[in-house]
Structure formats: structure tokens, C-alpha cells
């Protein structure tokens, strides 16, 4: 079973994240790039499926040159090879354009399954998996907390507010995962060394057959018109217990509509 894992490089959530004031897109120089956390779960699930069913795991990343670091990291977890979709024309693409571009890049690959994290920690639209499946005309199995493959059938537990649904489809399919699905492994030193020699194919928009009139900031369906940093956290309320602390705490919660 050949699996493609979509890996996005995002700014490290542990560092300060900024948008660039020129065009309201992400300022990638402002913070370190890391693999989007949920994508690590996607990689782990793909590796587990490979260990069980054989085949190859390919990483597909769309992003600028520096995304190479995240591709190497994904390869050092154990993926076999990678495709890097990189083109200035893609800069500023929104979620729908990203899904379109990824669908075209996937068109150059042979796969039975596409796995991705259910959302990214930067834009957090959470729609790329669903939009991608539509572009590809494939079944979408989103928010998977468990994946089982049996022959051509794939069955997932879809995480819901009330527990989970069991959803089944036929391969090929697109699966997005949530973090309860597994515990991503650490790379090993040996795999880190091997990763340096694993093939990473660069793909331009033209190579992938992407119509550049449909992608990029200028052609995006959505536009970020303004941004503001989160306001600094206000000081908390201190309740001093003078025999009526419980009542005051309850009043506070009622006032804030918590109870």
C-alpha cells in the first residue's frame, strides 16, 4: 500500500509568530519552522500502516525552500521519499488554492491513501483535507482517531463531540487524523543519517500542471485584510476568603456566564 503524507511546515508555536505587514501573509523569517504537529501523527499512522501492509510512504510538502528542513525531519522518522512542491507563484495561496495545488501534485504520484493532519497550527482552517478529497474525487475520511485497512476497504473512527462515528470507504481515499490516533515516534540517529540520502523531488507549479492563474495571493478567494496581536492577558481576579469566598467565587462564575 503506497501512502502519501501531506506535511506542512508551520512557525513553531513555542516562538513568537507574526504576519508580515507587506501583504498580510505569514512572516516565515520571524520564527523557526517546524512540522505541523498533527502532521507528525499523520506520518506516524502512515508508518504504522506501512509496517503492517508494506508499500512506501512518500512525504508531500508545499512550501518555500526552507520547508526542506521539515521534509528531512519527516524522512528521518522513517518515510521513504519526498516530493517538494515549491514555486513562487504559490505564495499566499489560501486553503482552497492549497488543496487544488496539492491535488495536482498528487496527480503526479501513485498512491492508495493520502494522510494528513486535520488542521495546521498556523492558519487553522481545517478544510484542506476535505477540499483536497473533492478536487481528487476521492472519499474523505476526516478527524480519524483510528484507522484500519483491510484489502481495499478502509475504516476509521471519526472523532465527534459525543464519541466517534465509524466511517468506511474504498481505497484510494483521503484521511485526516486527530492527535489521539497514536504517539509519534522520535527519529533515530541512524534514520537521520539515512534521511540525508533519501530522494526529495522538487516539483514546480508547471511540473504539477497547476494553472498559475488559479493560485497565489492575487487570485485567492479569501483575503486577510488586517491583523492584530492578541491583547495582553488581563490580570486575574483575586477573591480573598473572609468567610464568604465560596459565594464570591460563585458570583464571579455567574457573572461570566460559566454557571
Amino acid at each position, binding site marked *: 500500500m503506497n501512502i502519501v503524507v501531506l506535511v506542512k511546515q508551520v512557525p513553531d508555536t513555542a516562538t513568537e509568530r507574526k504576519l508580515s505587514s507587506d501583504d498580510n501573509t505569514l512572516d516565515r523569517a520571524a520564527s523557526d519552522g517546524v512540522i505541523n504537529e498533527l502532521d507528525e501523527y499523520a506520518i506516524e499512522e502512515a508508518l504504522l500502516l506501512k509496517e503492517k501492509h508494506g508499500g512506501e510512504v512518500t512525504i508531500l510538502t508545499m512550501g518555500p525552500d526552507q520547508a526542506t528542513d521539515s521534509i528531512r525531519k519527516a524522512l*528521518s522518522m522513517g518515510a521513504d521519499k519526498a516530493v517538494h512542491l515549491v514555486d513562487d507563484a504559490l505564495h499566499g495561496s489560501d486553503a482552497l488554492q492549497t488543496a487544488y495545488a496539492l491535488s495536482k501534485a498528487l496527480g503526479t504520484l501513485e498512491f492508495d491513501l493520502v494522510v494528513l493532519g486535520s488542521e495546521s497550527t498556523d492558519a487553522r482552517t481545517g478544510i484542506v483535507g476535505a477540499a483536497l478529497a473533492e478536487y481528487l474525487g476521492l472519499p474523505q475520511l476526516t478527524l480519524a482517531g483510528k484507522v484500519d485497512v483491510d484489502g481495499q476497504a478502509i475504516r476509521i473512527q471519526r472523532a465527534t463531540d459525543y464519541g466517534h462515528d465509524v466511517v468506511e470507504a474504498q481505497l484510494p481515499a483521503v484521511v485526516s487524523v486527530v492527535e489521539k490516533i497514536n504517539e509519534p515516534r*522520535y*527519529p*533515530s*540517529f*541512524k534514520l*537521520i*543519517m539515512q534521511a*540525508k540520502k533519501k530522494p526529495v523531488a522538487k516539483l514546480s507549479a508547471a511540473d504539477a500542471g497547476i494553472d498559475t492563474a488559479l493560485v497565489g495571493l492575487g487570485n485567492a478567494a479569501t483575503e486577510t485584510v488586517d491583523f492584530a496581536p492578541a491583547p495582553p492577558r488581563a490580570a486575574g481576579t483575586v477573591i480573598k476568603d473572609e468567610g464568604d469566598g465560596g459565594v464570591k467565587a460563585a458570583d464571579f462564575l455567574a457573572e461570566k456566564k460559566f454557571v
Partner: protein
Amino acid sequence: MAVERTLPTSEAQDLLDLTRGIADKELAPRAAPDEEAGAFPRDVFALLGRSGLLGLPYPAAYGGGDQPYEVYLQVVEELAARWLAVGLGVSVHTLSCFPVAAYGTDAQRADLLPDMLGGAQLGAYCLSESHAGSDAGALATRAEPEPGAVPAPRAGAAEAGPDAEPAGVPEAPGYRITGAKSWITHGGAADFYTLFARTGGPGSGREGISCFHLPAATPGISADPPERKMGMSASPTAVVRFEDVRAALESRIGAEGQGFAIALAALDSGRLGIAACAVGVAQAALDLALAHSRERHQFGRPIGDFQGLSFLLADMATQTAAARELYLAAARRRDAGRPFATQAAMAKLFATDTAMRVTTDAVQVLGGAGYTRDLPAERLMREAKVLQIVEGTNQIQRMVIGRALAREARTTEGPAGR
């Protein structure tokens, strides 16, 4: 605060990144609770093994990482900075692998090293005895050579029980080992013991000692309950007993009588590991004290702005940086194939004394809070103490250095004194 390191290769940089990631996520959160509970983190060693961190300075052909000591030791330092029990455990394990890696036959290496370096097997190093500590050459554990080939009993069908040995397989002569080893890190938790025992007669001195590699499951090997130590409670230290343990000839590493030389060679390298551990502990204490000195305000200012503390922190940082450079200088000599035993002793001495001083000062910077068990300062101070004692007390290190100085003076002395 991440230490800025100069590393020789990009792969070493990747290795240190991997180490920091594991240390921050898997070691740091568990150090305090597991030390409090005295719980040995065997699972952490399994993870380190899977990640390739338990055989770094050994050949890749046997599952090692092919890394120079300069790089391996910085990995140990990063681990020890989060949790000494793990950093020291990695150093002791690496020490325990040294005899097979450096003195084993090709067959022994091919047979034993993959599991040892791959992390499936955790090691312990059995040299000290209750009456042979600094004077390790006086050890009394006996490995009695068996006379000639012992034919296996040819059991008749009538007497053969279910446990009878397969008939007709002759057993090659080996050794019968009896004795007890003290202060054994991983005693009772290890999967194999690297043992030094006397194959020569009583009074055979240092030339009568041989080295053995024994699986912990060998019949006759047992460990006492762990010692109740001042610190490092998560790392078991115990007496390991050998009662009429049969060791096959193939379990001997190196020639008969070569054991003491092997033990000392292993310790030269092991001391560098202890020095790296000490720098990690000192760095952790410095980071803690520095952060506290910025956060804590008295008289309307961060306490670190007062010269009294600022100078103290400056000394702590300088000594820690100097200790790091000293162990790295010794490591680079080793990596270049030059003699390094004296430099290793200097690094061990200076780094562990530095760790003691810096951790004590860190408690002082934190004041009353530093003396409580709610913060790690007091734990680091208790941990630092053991490093001045293990793998040669600092008095022994001074002896090693002093002897080397005298030797050097003798060889450079001409008739006119120069």
C-alpha cells in the same frame, strides 16, 4: 538556556537536536517525580536505545553511531543536564561496552555488540569491591579456571529427568566465579555485567585479573536491595553477588591477566563521561539560578542586578564553561589517537568539583526556596556530590595527575636539570 555548541559535522548537530528534543520532552518532566519515588526509568533507556544514543562512540558495523568522543560526550552532557540518573546511566552503559568493543575478538563483537549498542541490553560495570575501591587491583572476586574439558554426563534413559543436559555434548573448560561487587550502578537492573575477577592465585596482584562479559540471567548472579543514597535514587546502586557462577571460556574478554589493564583503559574513557555529566549538572544549576535571579525582585530590582549575585553568577558561568572546554580538549586528544588519561583525570577532577561548587551556589541564589524540595536546586546539589566520588575519587584523580607530572619531569630532566 540552550548551550551554544561548536560541533564538527552537520550530523552531530542533528544528533544534538535529537538529544535535546528527547531530553526536554521525556527526561525533564520525569526527573523530579521519579527521583522522589526512586523509580528506575528502564523505558527511557529503551527509547534512547531505539534512538541510537546507547552506542554512540562505537563502530556502525556493530550497531554503534561512529561518533567521536567530542560529540558523544556532549550528548551525555545534555542528558545529564535534564536528569543525571539517565546521563550517568548512558555513561556507565557505554563504559560497560568498552571491553568487548576494544578487546573482544571479532566473534565476540559480532555476537554481543549489536544488542549492547542497540539498547536491547543495558550494562553494568563490576570492578569495585567492599575492600577494593580506590585500590581496585586488590580485588578478591575469584574466577577459578576449570581443569581441562569436562565431558557432559551421559545420562541413561532411566535417570534422565526433564532437566538433564543433552547427552554427549562435551563442555569446554571455563571458569567458576565467586565473589561480591560493590557500588554497582544498574546492579539488579542490568541485562549484562562487565566483570573483573581474579583468575590468578592469591597474591597474583594486578596481573592476575581477567575481564568477563556475563548475561545477568546467568545462574548464581544476584543483586542485593539498592543502597539508600543521598541522591540519584532513580538509579539503582547495589552489591552484585556471584555464587559459583559458571562462565564459558568465550565470556572472557581479552587475555587471562589482561583484565586490570582493560579496566583502567575503560575508566580513562569513563571519566570523560563523568566530566560531561558534571558539566550538565552545573549548567542546569546555573540556568536555574540565572532565571531565578531575573524573576525575583527585592528592593525594587531583580536580585541578579545586585553585584553580589551578578559576580556569583559570573563565576558559576565561567567555571562551567571552563569545565566544558577541559573535557572537550581531553576528548579531542582521544579522538586524535593521542594519550589522554591525564587530561581525562584533570577534566573529571575539575568538572566534578565545579559541579559541586556551582550547585551549592545555585541553592544560595535561590535562598530559602533553594533549600526546599519544591525546586530542583537541592537535588542538583545532592547529585553533584556523587560525581566527586565515582569512577575514581577526586583524590585518585589528583594522584593520577601527580604521577604523570613526576613521570614527565623525570623524562625531561637532563644532567643540568633541563
